[in-house]
């Protein structure tokens, strides 16, 4: 990147202190976002992608905490700001869009009140002016009859319309960066397409940079300029979106892309990555992906790879180590399918997967069967680690 980055995350490490010791959920990740750029962050549940987003806007919930590293916005550190200072950054400098539009709006206030509050908190404008802006925002997010709708409560909007309101709210103070955490996951596919189109258009018009966190590679492909693929709290690969999708360099990305069913070609079988993401209490040594990787060799087991240039992207994989002498033995040991090796890493849910899952659950749709409601309210408790 030639231009100075808008957001710079350097060596960020997020830890959870538990009775049984400290869990490292995000381990030494660095990334930057240029002004107006859309960076996709993709990964499976438990990869640490949502935590990274939460850490940037200072919304990590205890016992989670930033243990090391720094977050810089326009060259100024924001990760160590006092609470009141951070409040001024949130909303004004960094907007946020979350997965579930119903829980990100206050049900007791009209959407107009919430928009006006956000606008007057961050911008020095009169109430009347704020209301006028709020109506404009709603119109620009495609809400028909905004003058009337502005006085409605969140429950009077449908799911797609609510997410439009949330987007309007995130953009109300004209932030330079928006963190969008799974903004379309709770929506149906036809609504999802509308919301992606809207988000793309608004951010292009207002030159807002976006950190788009999602597990859906399709959404990333449609929206992002660059993409970071996360695995077990680390960035496995980062690069221009077309390159990562069509010429993945890290074996995990290769597997991930192959496991997505597509329309382009008829395949009898999908690429299958054995096992699942390791639990946080048992992150494997060396490269965390090595027990599942088909190309593991001895270096992978012993040493953790950092991001290194791989094609037009960067990948954290010893296969791309420029020092060839160290990778001499790289063909020596292929993963031979010993499932027990994988098993020891993944039998229990990692802590942040629990949060991810719980959030997923709260947005299940009611499909007309009353008995189902109860089953969706079942709370997942963090496993006894």
């Amino acid at each position, binding site marked *: 990147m030639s231009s100075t980055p808008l957001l710079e995350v350097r060596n960020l490490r997020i830890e959870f202190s538990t009775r049984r010791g400290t869990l490292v959920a995000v381990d030494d990740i660095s990334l930057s976002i240029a002004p107006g750029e859309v960076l996709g962050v993709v990964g499976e549940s438990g990869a640490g992608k949502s935590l990274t987003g939460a850490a940037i806007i200072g919304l990590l919930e205890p016992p989670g905490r930033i243990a090391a590293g720094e977050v810089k916005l326009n060259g100024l550190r924001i990760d160590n700001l006092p609470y009141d200072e951070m409040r001024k950054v949130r909303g004004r400098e960094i907007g946020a869009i979350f997965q579930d539009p119903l829980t990100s709006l206050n049900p007791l206030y009209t959407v107009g009140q919430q928009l006006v509050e956000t606008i007057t908190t961050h911008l020095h404008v009169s109430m009347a002016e704020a209301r006028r802006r709020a109506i404009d925002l709603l119109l620009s997010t495609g809400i028909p009859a905004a003058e009337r709708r502005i006085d409605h409560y969140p429950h009077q909007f449908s799911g797609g319309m609510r997410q439009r309101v949330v987007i309007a709210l995130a953009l109300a103070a004209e932030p330079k960066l928006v963190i969008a955490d799974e903004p379309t996951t709770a929506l149906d596919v036809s609504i999802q*397409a509308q919301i992606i189109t809207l988000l793309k258009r608004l951010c292009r018009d207002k030159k807002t940079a976006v950190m788009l966190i999602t597990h859906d590679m399709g959404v990333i*492909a449609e929206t992002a300029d660059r993409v970071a693929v996360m695995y077990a709290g680390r960035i496995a690969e980062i690069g221009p979106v077309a390159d990562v999708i069509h010429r993945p360099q890290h074996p995990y990305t290769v597997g991930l892309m192959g496991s997505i*069913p597509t329309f382009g070609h008829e395949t009898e079988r999908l690429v299958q990555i054995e096992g699942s993401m390791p639990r946080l209490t048992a992150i494997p040594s060396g490269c965390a992906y090595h027990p599942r990787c088909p190309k593991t060799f001895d270096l992978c087991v012993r040493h953790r790879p950092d991001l290194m240039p791989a094609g037009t992207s960067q990948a954290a994989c010893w296969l791309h180590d420029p020092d060839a002498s160290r990778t001499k033995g790289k063909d020596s040991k292929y993963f031979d399918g010993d499932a027990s090796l994988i098993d020891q890493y993944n039998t229990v849910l990692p802590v942040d997967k629990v949060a991810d899952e719980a959030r997923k659950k709260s947005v299940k749709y009611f*499909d007309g069967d009353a008995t189902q409601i109860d089953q969706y309210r079942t709370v997942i408790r963090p496993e006894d680690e």
Partner: protein
Amino acid sequence: MSAVLKSTPAAASRDDVIVKATDIAKYFDVSPPLLNRVLERKPRVLLHAVDGVSFEIKRGETLALVGESGCGKSTVARLLVGLYRPTRGEIDFFGHDLREMNTASGRTLRQKLQMIFQDPYASLNPRWRVADIIAEPLKTHGLLQDRRAIESRVDELLTQVRLGPADKDKYPHQFSGGQRQRISIARALATHPEFLVCDEPTSALDVSVQAQVLNLMKDLQRDLGLTYLFISHNLAVVHHISDRVGVMYLGKLVELASKRTIFSAPRHPYTRMLLDAIPDLEMSGRARTPVAGEVPNPLNPPGGCTFHPRCPHANDRCKHEVPVFRLVKNGETQVACHAVEEGRI
């Protein structure tokens, strides 16, 4: 199982079709309580979750039902396994009316019909060991009496779903989401079923784990000759696993055709819209038709063709006359659309 087959020469002659749903409907009464209805003069309210759906499923094939939330696809799944009693219509399974399932002779019928649920965290009893979960159908149906026989059958089932016999003493919480879904598949396979109803079996799973489960389901279908009804909202998954696809909208089937036809030549405007809305992984940069609007409230669906408020091809007839679900000229696609029938699109 042969008892069922023998008693139905009719079914054997039409050998292929093992499930036949004729005009099935399910209405839910969501009226306010009686007192409110009397005092506030509120009317009875019926939710037409499924409203006149007909299809056939042939032996060994996978029929997928797709649609957005609230379109009634899960209700169809539950009707098919007898978890709901249909308000109208008939479900024919191996030449037997599904209502026989509750009789004593229906026991054999029930063994051939199993279900896999969406949420592997809710569909397994957290207090039971895996061995007990999988052995439950064996005991309920009285298939095996001997403890050792049950145990070896459980081992066999666990191996079949790529878990190990060592897993049978564990509890569900000790497994990841994908492994739990395998356990529920093993449970479903315990009675040697021929027909499995799978209600969004992979939508709670991560994509790499989803691939494992989809591959497993395909392998099992090939090895055991299973027939699937596969419910999903994910068109890419449906494209991967199904042979035929039915698209549902507000409780009705709007299009039904082979996978190839529906993905290469969709006829109904809603099907076209759905296919168009999928994020494009190939990044071909194709232009998409932006689709306005959302699914209407099923309590108060639009008249005529329920899709007309969102349809770019709607005319007056669409607003007033309900389109009939019928075969189109290619002799294969069934579609409910006036515009297609009139040759306008």
